[in-house]
């Protein structure tokens, strides 16, 4: 065990090419997924904060429920969509990083939407009348509140990135864990552990822990007024 740890640290300090490739792909896939998820999730959250229609409460409930969406279920759904016999099989992107980005985007959209809806609704309770008085329509006011609460929004996005980079189920199913192509930190850890190659698994585990640790460090340092949200995310 001590030998494995020593070898793992050596892989990190010597910037092992295989390790760096896996880490780089992980970050690229999860950052892309968060960028897509941010666009869709923030827009959905802002809209849900102001839209009123029959079934609105049901939709809010559904989005909140999907916060706890298991990543393997997302992986399965995306697999069914993208597999050769699936409706999007003609795209031919199964077992590619693009498929992994799609799966992780689906995973983080409900998280971003649910948390940003709450942020926007709370902010509108304070300043919604003022913005409407100035001439803002409901959706404009909601989108402006995302700007107003941009630090809290950044916290939400960091949380989403943490969720994406640390999940294993979805990327394993839709990526296939192909060496050099779709192998990311979590899938590599699972594989190397089962193979008994503990040094690489440990090195990746340390890097992953470091990434998640940095994210939570940044969240803790953000001067956020919404202490309740920060505590909820911490």
């Amino acid at each position: 065990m001590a030998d494995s740890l020593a070898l793992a640290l050596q892989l990190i300090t010597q910037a092992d090419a295989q390790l760096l490739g896996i880490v780089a792909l992980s970050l690229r896939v999860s950052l892309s997924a968060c960028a897509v998820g941010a666009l869709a999730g923030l827009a959905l959250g802002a809209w849900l904060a102001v839209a009123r229609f029959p079934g609105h409460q049901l939709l809010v409930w559904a989005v909140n429920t999907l916060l706890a969406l298991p990543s393997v279920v997302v992986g399965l759904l995306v697999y069914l969509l993208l597999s050769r016999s699936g409706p999007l099989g003609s795209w031919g992107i199964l077992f590619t990083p693009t498929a992994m980005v799609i799966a992780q985007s689906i995973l983080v959209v409900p998280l971003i939407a649910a948390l940003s809806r709450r942020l926007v609704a709370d902010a509108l309770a304070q300043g919604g009348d003022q913005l409407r008085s100035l001439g803002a329509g409901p959706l404009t006011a909601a989108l402006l509140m995302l700007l107003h609460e941009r630090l809290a929004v950044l916290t939400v996005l960091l949380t989403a990135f943490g969720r994406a980079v640390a999940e294993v189920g979805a990327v394993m199913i839709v990526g296939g864990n192909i060496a050099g192509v779709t192998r990311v930190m979590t899938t590599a850890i699972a594989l190397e552990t089962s193979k008994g190659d503990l040094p690489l698994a440990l090195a990746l585990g340390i890097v992953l822990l470091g990434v998640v640790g940095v994210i939570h460090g940044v969240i803790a340092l953000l001067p956020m007024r919404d202490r309740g949200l920060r505590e909820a995310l911490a």
Partner: protein
Amino acid sequence: MNAPLPVSLAPAADAAAAAEPLVSLHGAAVHFGRTTALAGVDLTLRRGQRLALIGSNGSGKTTLLRLLHGLLPPSRGQRTLHRLAAEGRPPRMAMLFQRPFLMQLSVQRNLRLGLWLAGVPAAERAARSDEALHRVGLHDQAQRPAAALSGGQQQRLALARAWALRPDILFLDEPTASLDPAAKHEVESLVETLGRDGVTVVMSTHNLGQAKRLATHVAYLEAGRLVVQAPTDAFFGSTLPPAAAHFLRGENPWL
């Protein structure tokens, strides 16, 4: 629900009665769930009026302001927004809240955002925001974050934002309630100037001295009903209905 008609004191002497109407309420009621916030309100806001809304907490002053402004639809009755006779357009409105809401942006950006929301052309925004900041004495603070301003300065910035829109009607919801005497005086002076410039002002306040100083008309609300509306001199100089007289004694024992 039949609301008792509000007492109207000395209507014959009310010169503003002839002025053009801007917003009218007819039997307007507002309900929040089972709670009645306003009931059977008949009120016509006329051009050039400075109307002070007084009444205890929960009497419906803020709800009436929001209803007049159009931020809230009446649950019953009718609100009519009249077009300005000379300009041929609906009146422009702005509102100053008890706690000013300012975006987490610089002082200048807050002003320009307000102008953008109001549809002011881009070419005019810079000049109008600079002019408004000069007017309230915040031009040297333009680049500071709005959140870094003191309470009085924030209220002045909110007033500048409202003023920059060149409103025909300005609604103020207890604008000086949480300010120290100096800041209160500054905000009152600005409101007075706006009134002199012809802006129609509707203001809720607990400060009867402020109502006397700034208002041409006073409306007294109690439990969501408009009990008395009258020109300021008539309101403070006449025998009021018992409820209003009791309120004045309770709020201002030296009267």
